């Protein structure tokens, strides 16, 4: 594996790690943006240009901004004085370490059986567009409906209710 892959992976994992261990919530959101940018670079390294740029636009452009808005709307921007972890953090850490151990063991055990085709796949935006309105048109329509319903629902849930109504 190339040096660039390990460098990008290290940046992504460091960003993810800081996103879950930092105390200040705004710092967590910024570290999360670094992790998303690293993931977009990993997608680009896998020759998935469309998915990489979608990741940048959707995650860095929309989700990270939404998280920052939610933090500021809930006055979570100041560093909390008491503990930021739940009552039993060790149990969560043990569960996550167990999941990583099982996943890593499964990946390493099946390394020989995994496909390793090395030809360069082509997935231009044109081909993806034709696939989206051809073979995948029904999932696309359902997804459009889901996004509409989710956006309207999020606005209604977060809408401020007047007193006495």
């Amino acid at each position, binding site marked *: *594996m190339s040096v660039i*892959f390990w460098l990008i*992976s290290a940046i*992504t*994992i460091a960003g*993810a790690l800081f*996103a*879950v261990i930092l105390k200040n*919530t705004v710092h967590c959101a910024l570290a*999360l943006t670094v992790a998303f940018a690293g*993931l977009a670079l*990993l997608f680009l390294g*896998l*020759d*998935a240009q*469309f*998915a990489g740029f979608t*990741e940048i636009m*959707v*995650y860095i452009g929309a*989700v990270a901004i*939404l*998280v920052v*808005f*939610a933090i500021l*709307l*809930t006055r979570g921007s100041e560093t909390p004085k008491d*503990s930021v*972890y*739940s009552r039993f*953090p060790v*149990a*969560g*850490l043990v*569960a*996550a*370490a167990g*999941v*990583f151990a099982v*996943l*890593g063991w499964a*990946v390493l055990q099946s*390394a020989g059986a*995994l*496909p*390793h085709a090395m*030809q360069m796949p082509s*997935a231009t935006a044109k081909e*993806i567009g034709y*696939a989206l309105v051809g073979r*995948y048109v029904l*999932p696309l329509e359902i*997804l459009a409906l*889901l*996004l509409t319903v*989710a*956006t309207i629902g*999020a606005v209604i*849930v*977060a809408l401020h209710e007047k007193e006495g109504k």
Partner: protein
Amino acid sequence: MTPLTAHLLVAALLFAIGLAGALTRRNAILVLIGIELMLNAANLNFIAFWRYSPHPEALTGMMFAIFSIAVAAAEAAVGLGLVIAIHRHLHSTDLDQMNRMKG
């Protein structure tokens, strides 16, 4: 180590970090951040399997990742809307205080 194995290991580590964040943090927004990290680790798996599959021209893994990104965006919008609504009731985003189903 083949490139696919390396990508799968990175994705597994990202998933474990997201799971640890979702399980150990007190703030509801940080739990959502952990869930987003886990979804992104799954997307990395889809893209890696698509890239090294024998038939990448079918675009299956790529399509699954794109649809998954869109569903994750909807999930983030609804989740953060719920966090804002709960904060209006409880004046807190502490998950330990969200122990009632009744408003």
